[in-house]
């Protein structure tokens, strides 16, 4: 239409006025660039003559990403990390690694081989976690596909199917078949009149036939989707008998884990760094490791007019202090409460508000990849027992040995029960529960190692549990700075329990510092 400026002309005009960043922003707004490309990167203004000193507490993903960005912009960083190792909750265990769990110190005893590792913290990355993936690219961390959802893995529940596991695909297929038949047979003009005309009703029936694999009479009589009972190659396939729907309901699976792969953050395909999640930590350490002081436990935070002073215990117990223009603090909020500090009461109340989750993971080395004999390549078997899930490694396929995840308790009740056990008791519990799913489990697995995050030194709880009330009353307080002190970490995000949340929280703080510096620069 005449008089109307084309998109290209507009972008050129914007570019002339505001530089390429403005073009980028405008193009994204016009829907020409995917939003993810924008979300993945942070562009701090170069420090120029206003280089600042920032003390970063904690060398987890949030602290490391923050330090990396600050450095890139030309600022100076000091990273204080209480633990003997960087990475925080990004913990990959290999032969000889120490689990610094309070009251339950362990040493990982796996054989020394590249595929024998256990991601005891984060293990999977969704394609939408753009910042984390941006760093994988930037830090040369190779990725491979991680299998999260596997229809060939098992569903087990003590209360259903005689306590024996059935294939995930069988459960899914029979449940959907039943639902589709139920609905298809009740598609009647009077019930749906208002929403669907006759043509739509017919298409809905076809939809349901396809959805549940119903026959022409709209009956569900089993499906090859559940896997054949026998045959299917050189002789005709014989369908499995249909499970009773009431028995499907007996298993807890439908409540949550049946729909696991539907979650945006859990859907296929997912990714993992080749060789272990801590390859990302290694990548950051190559860039900012010289600024990281390990075994440096912060003991005191003092807010001042023009900066923040942080006192910490060095490796010999001696107390040292750093003064910086800003402090980015990624240590768990519930541990900040135990420091000496002059933080305002409102802020301390907010720090005290979120709860501490009790995730527990346990892994075994398997001397035989027995799951591959069961036609399982990666993915998760689910059970109603405390171990909750068993994960099969998607890497090292057919290599003989492998590390199998023998427990990953999400919920507080099973998590607390496992947390209270000694490492040896946890191993026995995981064996006893695992062998209900894999009868020969005990013969194949050993060298168990476990991590109860509620008791991990310097962490003492994961994930952060924000109740609706705490979120409403306190989140904004912690997301804003107090003086020149910023809380960061996945705990200060709406994505606790995800590395992307940790990075985004750091970006949130860094953008604010950027803004303050720019304003101060203009004023000064």
């Amino acid at each position: 239409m005449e008089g109307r400026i084309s998109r290209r002309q507009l972008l050129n005009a914007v570019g002339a006025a505001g530089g390429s960043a403005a073009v980028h922003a405008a193009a994204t707004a016009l829907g020409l660039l995917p939003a993810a490309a924008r979300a993945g990167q942070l562009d701090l203004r170069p420090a120029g003559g206003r280089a600042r000193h920032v003390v970063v507490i904690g060398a987890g993903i949030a602290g490391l990403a923050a330090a990396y960005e600050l450095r890139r912009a030309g600022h100076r960083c000091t990273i204080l990390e209480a633990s003997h190792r960087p990475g925080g909750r990004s913990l990959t265990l290999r032969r000889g690694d120490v689990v610094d769990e309070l009251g339950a110190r362990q040493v990982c005893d796996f054989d020394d081989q590249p595929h024998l590792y256990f991601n005891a913290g984060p293990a999977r990355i969704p394609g939408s976690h753009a910042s984390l993936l941006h760093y994988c690219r930037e830090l040369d961390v190779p990725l491979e596909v991680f299998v999260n959802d596997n229809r060939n893995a098992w569903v087990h529940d003590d209360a259903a199917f005689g306590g024996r596991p059935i294939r995930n695909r069988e459960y899914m297929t029979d449940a959907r078949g039943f639902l589709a038949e139920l609905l298809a047979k009740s598609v009647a003009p009077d019930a749906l009149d208002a929403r669907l005309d006759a043509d739509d009703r017919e298409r809905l029936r076809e939809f349901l036939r396809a959805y549940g694999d119903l026959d022409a009479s709209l009956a569900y009589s089993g499906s090859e989707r559940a896997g054949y009972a026998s045959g299917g190659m050189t002789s005709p396939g014989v369908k499995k008998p249909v499970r009773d729907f009431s028995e499907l309901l007996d298993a807890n699976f439908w409540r949550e884990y049946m729909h696991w792969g539907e979650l945006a953050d859990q859907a296929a395909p997912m990714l993992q760094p080749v060789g272990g999640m801590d390859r990302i930590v290694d990548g950051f350490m190559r860039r900012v490791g010289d600024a990281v002081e390990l075994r440096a436990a912060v003991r005191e935070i003092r807010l001042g007019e023009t900066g923040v002073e942080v006192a910490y215990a060095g490796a010999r117990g001696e107390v040292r202090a750093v003064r910086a223009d800003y402090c980015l603090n990624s240590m768990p909020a519930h541990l900040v409460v135990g420091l000496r500090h002059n933080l305002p009461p409102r802020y301390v109340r907010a720090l005290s508000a979120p709860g501490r989750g009790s995730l527990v993971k346990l892994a075994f080395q398997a001397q035989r990849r027995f799951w591959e004999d069961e036609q399982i390549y990666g993915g998760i078997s689910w059970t109603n027992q405390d171990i909750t899930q068993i994960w099969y490694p998607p890497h090292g396929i057919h290599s003989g040995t492998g590390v199998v995840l023998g427990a990953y308790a999400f919920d507080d009740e099973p998590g607390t029960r496992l947390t209270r056990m000694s490492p040896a008791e946890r191993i026995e519990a995981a064996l006893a529960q695992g062998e209900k799913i894999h009868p020969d489990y005990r013969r194949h697995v050993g060298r168990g190692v476990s991590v109860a995050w509620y008791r991990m030194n310097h962490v003492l709880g994961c994930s952060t549990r924000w109740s609706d009330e705490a979120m409403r009353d306190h989140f904004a307080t912690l997301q804003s700075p107090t003086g020149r002190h910023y809380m960061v970490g996945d705990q200060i995000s709406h994505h606790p329990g995800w590395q992307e949340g940790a990075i985004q929280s750091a970006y949130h703080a860094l953008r604010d510092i950027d803004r303050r510096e720019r304003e101060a620069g203009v004023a000064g």
Partner: protein
Amino acid sequence: MQRSFYRVLLTSGLTVVAALAVVAVLGAGTRPAAAQAPEAGPFAPRALYGAACASCHGTDGRGNPRIDTPVLAGLSAAYLERQLDSFRRGYRGRHPEDLEGLEMRPMVEGFAAADLAAVGAWLASLPVPQPAGDAATTGAEGQGGDPARGRTLYAACAVCHGRSGEGNDALGAPRLAGQASWYTLRQLRKFMDGIRGSHPDDTSGASMRASVAGLAPRDAADIVAWIEMLPVN
């Protein structure tokens, strides 16, 4: 005498697996091997506290309600040593309902008695921290106790714990003034319910348990409301 593995780790190389674990955590080079006798060095108790206790108990024993840990600074050396030792020997932290005690017990199991005493003495030398703020920040559970009524009831407690809650080592009674009230209340309840003080070897715990046997839950809340008002000096 058994040497604490923490201490060994601070000073020299080791063989056993558990010890290896701690070397890695504390750093084998924390002190030059064999440079000093293990008992020497002004940092020893403080370094041990930093390595083994500070994450949970907070800076210099100030306690952390979010981790359910009490104030330790300024308690008497004798009381701290006795409690640490009773965890070590399993008088405390064995009852299945003593959840925090169950978390504490394995933390001291690797320690030698002498090291516990040294850490206790160091904590005793620290000033009692001033309460950090309002009820929410100190973790008081908002029991709404009545301090006036508590004051009357407290007269019986004062015989051992002192009129101002200053404690009395001769009687084995710890200081109460300055302790986090959520903690005092929880311990009082544990004594009342026999969760603490019921181990046959825990003589001082047993006498405390006997003293509180007649209290009602409301009495406990009132007493703690009064203790909370006792000044720290």
